[in-house]
């Protein structure tokens, strides 16, 4: 663990998360009203979408951007296969639950990404604005792969297929992220200037309070959880380590700058706990939320925020160094 990893722990954003975890473990009754938490998550998505769109309106769309989009979509489609194999084999889950969990790990966590951007910015490795679009496109492919693994090609459990695809492609976070991205793209820097006091100045503060809440929720769910096996706990740590490395390497290979490669690594490492759980309640109601939420929210999410983002950032720098040294 190098300096950049440790630096994480003086960021107020991360400290509020730690405060939330600590308060929950101390069984404090501290709680953010759910409407406020929901509102903050929508705010964060709108803000990150806008910001990404404005950035791309400046930089334009080039080969690198397209490569990053392609890499992200491919990763989201493929990671669930890897995850499914591990979850069924080593994790001993049944087909339905292995598929459901696999979908979470192929998809992404918006807040993990946002926190990573803050940390990478502070380390002078800002990821490209187009990574927001990469994130948005990575949300859904994994859901399809996960369902395919859980149900097979044929049956959808009495669930009309069209309704399901619709649910997947028009889910709230995809629509808001891509919509705000589009508005940023159309409005450009001028349009953004008008609204930037709200969306930019407030961003880090809202992220603090949101992470305080996620710390509370993640730790409470951990305490309420009935026996999660040690095997599943190990996967919830090991998988983001592996995916983070693979994603960063992929990013480096396709020629992304250090920050963007690290961001791709974080996206691969992160597991969804907003878009995918809701989709699973809808499409795989037989799967146990006690498994997939506890893994993605109570183990992988804190691990990423507290440790893995730092590791991935260091890895990205290392790989970039190797790349530069190579002829």
């Amino acid at each position, binding site marked *: 663990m190098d300096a950049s990893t440790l630096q994480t722990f003086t960021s107020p954003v991360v400290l509020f998360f730690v405060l939330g975890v600590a308060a929950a473990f101390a069984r404090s009754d501290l*709680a953010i009203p*759910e*409407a406020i*938490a*929901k509102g903050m*998550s929508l705010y964060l998505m709108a803000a990150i979408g806008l910001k990404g769109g404005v950035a791309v309106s400046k930089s334009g769309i080039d080969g690198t951007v397209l490569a990053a989009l392609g890499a992200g979509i491919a990763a989201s489609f493929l990671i669930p296969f890897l995850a499914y194999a591990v979850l069924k084999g080593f994790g001993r889950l049944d087909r339905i639950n292995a598929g459901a969990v696999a979908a979470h790990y192929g998809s992404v966590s918006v807040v993990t990404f946002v926190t990573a951007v803050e940390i990478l910015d502070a380390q002078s490795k800002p990821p490209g604005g187009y990574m927001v679009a990469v994130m948005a496109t990575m949300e859904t492919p994994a859901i399809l792969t996960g369902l395919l693994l859980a149900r097979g090609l044929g049956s959808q459990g009495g669930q009309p297929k069209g309704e399901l695809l619709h649910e997947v492609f028009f889910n709230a976070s995809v629509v808001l992220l891509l919509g705000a991205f589009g508005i940023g793209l159309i409005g450009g820097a001028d349009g953004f200037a008008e609204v930037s006091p709200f969306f930019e100045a407030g961003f880090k503060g809202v992220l603090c309070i949101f992470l305080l*809440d*996620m710390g*509370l*929720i993640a730790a*409470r769910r951990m305490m*309420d*959880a*009935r026996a999660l096996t040690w095997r599943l706990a190990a996967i919830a740590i090991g998988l983001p380590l592996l995916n983070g490395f693979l994603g960063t390497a992929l990013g480096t290979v396709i020629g992304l700058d250090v920050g963007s490669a690290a961001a791709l690594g974080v996206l691969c490492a992160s597991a969804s*706990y*907003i*878009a995918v*759980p*809701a*989709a699973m*309640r*809808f499409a795989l*109601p*037989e799967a*146990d*939320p*006690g498994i997939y*939420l506890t893994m993605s*929210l109570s183990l992988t999410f804190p691990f990423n925020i507290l440790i893995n983002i730092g590791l991935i950032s260091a890895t990205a720098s290392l790989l970039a160094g190797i790349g530069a040294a190579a002829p």
Partner: protein
Amino acid sequence: MIETVTRKRIEILTDTALVKRVTDAIDRVEITGWTVTPVLSGKGREGRWREERVMGTDKVLVLTIAAEDKAMRLAEEIAPILTSHGLLFSMWDVQVIRGERF
């Protein structure tokens, strides 16, 4: 003295994500209406849940008042997915005014 008639009041606890499946079933058996009310937290065989609104895995109660025959048809519509989808179904007799509405 006001005249009342007896109807069934049905209460279904369901995941927010599955509300539409429940209300579609209510519409299918031609019950005239339904009402959705919020739920904060709970505990069942699958453990405790709370503060799930952010994750979209929270629950609601769907209430509907109907004549007995339609109520029983609804029970039959819902029964197959009751356990797999984690629904909770209960019903009882209530007196309503102007029962022709239901």
